[in-house]
């Protein structure tokens, strides 16, 4: 490529701020329960999270433990001392008019996470990860944010424990961002500190700018000066892996078009409007300096560097995938499917001792996950004992694989009946050899034209006869056995 062409080629440079809610029982600075899913507004508050005068915030030890686990999983440093700051701004979702967060001394520093995109590995550097409290939630009365006459505020969410994970601008495309978010949430779920199904548990802000391709060095790095000289936008309000990919794809096109038309990209904050699929300028002028950070004097500093050694974390997805591959002799693809969530991996591992590992892998990764996916259900909703009984029926050839998958499993998932009950109800018990032999003889007697076709070398004839036998036995015969038997009878 010529130098001129390279200059015209623009590469996106993206960094993320990922907010995840930690799965504690109580809020980060008070004892209010975090179990607010079906609660009425403003029923999970107290003087601390309402910011009433004189209330004293006290840090939740579980939130700190979880932060240390996250740091350990991301291979980050836990500094000797870390502390909290007040970030000052006025907005109705913030009852104290400041947010307690961490500023110059976050609890996790300099970590990394490896992702795989299209078979190549990329190492994403984590600049920092810190603890903070969530603000409340707002409802804009009378429609959209710019048309509302007033705001309704619910402080149930205020004080929920958040971890903000900040990456370096290491992403070069939306697919990498999506892969990172998938990997990150997978790791967090493995750690037991995060629940992806909880409403609002993941929120992402993305910084994005476009630099010319020749500014990217051999090792994929970009000079700090280049990044500082390039205007970037911050896209807020992203709440899913897919949303992140879409929002960034949109923003890349928007910036690329602006540059092509010779217009400057404004340095600004933009709001991702999921329903319209566009980013919209937010005209916010606050800069970091305007937040007037100062030390939170109510919360003494933390010295928890030693916890990194004391707190253990479970085997993480990458390690488990590798172990599944070698220990159970599974393909990469199957091992990946089985370790994508901790729940599935645990499920598989709890059954693997009772059966052939490959057999359980197929039934879990392909059959069961397929049926669950179709029903938008998770593996946690499956009765493990009942599933094991189903595998036992298939493994001992009491029922056919086909009936096991298509009738028993589906019925088990849909009406919760026990496999044995379903087999009996549907008459699926494998027909004994005598009955199959009789059915084969009947099929041959009743369909002389098919028999003639078979001898004439017509391909479909045998299949037709197999079908007749299967119908006769109510689908309980093993198609392969029937095939074999028919062939023997017809050619003898």
């Amino acid at each position, binding site marked *: 490529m010529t130098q001129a062409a390279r200059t015209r080629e623009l590469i996106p440079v993206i960094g993320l701020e990922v907010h995840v809610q930690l799965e*504690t*029982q*109580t809020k980060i600075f*008070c*004892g*209010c*329960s975090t179990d607010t899913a079906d609660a*009425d*507004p*403003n*029923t*999970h*508050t*107290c*003087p601390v999270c*309402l910011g009433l005068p004189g209330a004293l915030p*006290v*840090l*939740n*030890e*579980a*939130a*700190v433990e979880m932060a240390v686990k996250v740091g350990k999983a991301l291979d980050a440093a836990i500094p000797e*001392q870390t502390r909290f700051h007040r970030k*000052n*701004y*006025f*907005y*109705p979702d913030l009852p104290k008019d400041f947010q307690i967060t961490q500023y110059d001394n976050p609890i996790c520093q300099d970590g990394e996470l490896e992702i795989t995109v299209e078979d190549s590995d990329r190492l994403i550097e984590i600049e920092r990860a810190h603890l903070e409290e969530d603000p409340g939630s*707002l*409802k*804009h*009365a009378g429609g959209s*944010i*710019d048309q*509302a*006459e*007033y*705001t*309704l*505020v*619910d*402080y149930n969410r205020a004080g929920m424990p958040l971890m903000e994970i900040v990456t370096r601008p290491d992403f070069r495309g939306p697919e990498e961002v999506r892969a990172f978010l998938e990997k990150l949430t997978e790791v967090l779920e493995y750690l037991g500190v995060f629940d992806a199904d909880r409403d609002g548990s993941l929120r992402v802000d993305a910084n994005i700018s476009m630099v010319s391709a020749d500014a990217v060095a051999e090792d994929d790095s970009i000079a700090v000066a280049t990044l500082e000289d390039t205007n970037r936008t911050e896209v807020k309000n992203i709440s899913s892996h897919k949303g992140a990919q879409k929002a960034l794809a949109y923003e890349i096109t928007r910036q690329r078009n602006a540059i092509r038309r010779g217009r400057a990209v404004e340095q600004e904050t933009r709001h991702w409007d999921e329903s319209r699929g566009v980013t919209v300028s937010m005209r916010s002028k*606050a800069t970091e300096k*305007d937040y*007037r950070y100062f030390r939170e004097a109510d*919360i*003494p*500093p*933390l*010295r*928890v560097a030693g916890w990194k050694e004391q707190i253990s974390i479970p085997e993480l997805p990458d390690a488990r995938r590798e172990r599944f591959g070698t220990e159970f002799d599974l393909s990469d693809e199957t091992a990946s499917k089985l370790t994508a969530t901790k729940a599935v991996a645990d499920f598989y591992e709890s059954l693997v001792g009772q059966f052939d590992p490959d057999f359980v892998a197929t039934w879990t990764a392909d059959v069961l996950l397929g049926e669950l996916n179709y029903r938008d259900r998770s593996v946690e909703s499956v009765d493990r004992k009942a599933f094991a009984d189903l595998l036992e029926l298939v493994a001992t050839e009491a029922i056919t694989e086909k009936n096991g998958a298509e009738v028993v499993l589906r019925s088990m998932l849909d009406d919760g009946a026990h496999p044995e009950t379903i087999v009996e109800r549907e008459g699926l018990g494998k027909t004994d050899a005598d009955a199959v032999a009789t059915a084969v003889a009947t099929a041959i007697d009743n369909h002389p034209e098919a028999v003639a076709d078979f001898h004439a070398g017509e391909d479909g004839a045998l299949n037709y006869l197999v079908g007749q036998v299967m119908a006769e036995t109510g689908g309980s015969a093993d198609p392969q056995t029937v095939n074999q038997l028919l062939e023997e009878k017809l050619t003898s």
Partner: protein
Amino acid sequence: MTTETVNADDVRHVADLARIDLEDAEIELFEEQFAEILEYFDSLDEVPAVDADEELVNVMRSDEPHESLSQATALKNAPETDDDYFKGPRVS
């Protein structure tokens, strides 16, 4: 010593951050008062060093839920409410 002076624009910016509307006359008044307040800090430089109390560290509580306020109690002191909610100004 305080070297930075406070000008009218600084006052306007701070007032803006605090969501306070100021008249021109008030801006002038606060400009002077700001300068005076900042001078007080200079006197801190004259305080001799003392041994500070040892700082507390790792003050934490266990993750056990406590009862929250009732909704009625939570909303009781709010200047304005609307059904289950606190009512605030429009933001945009």
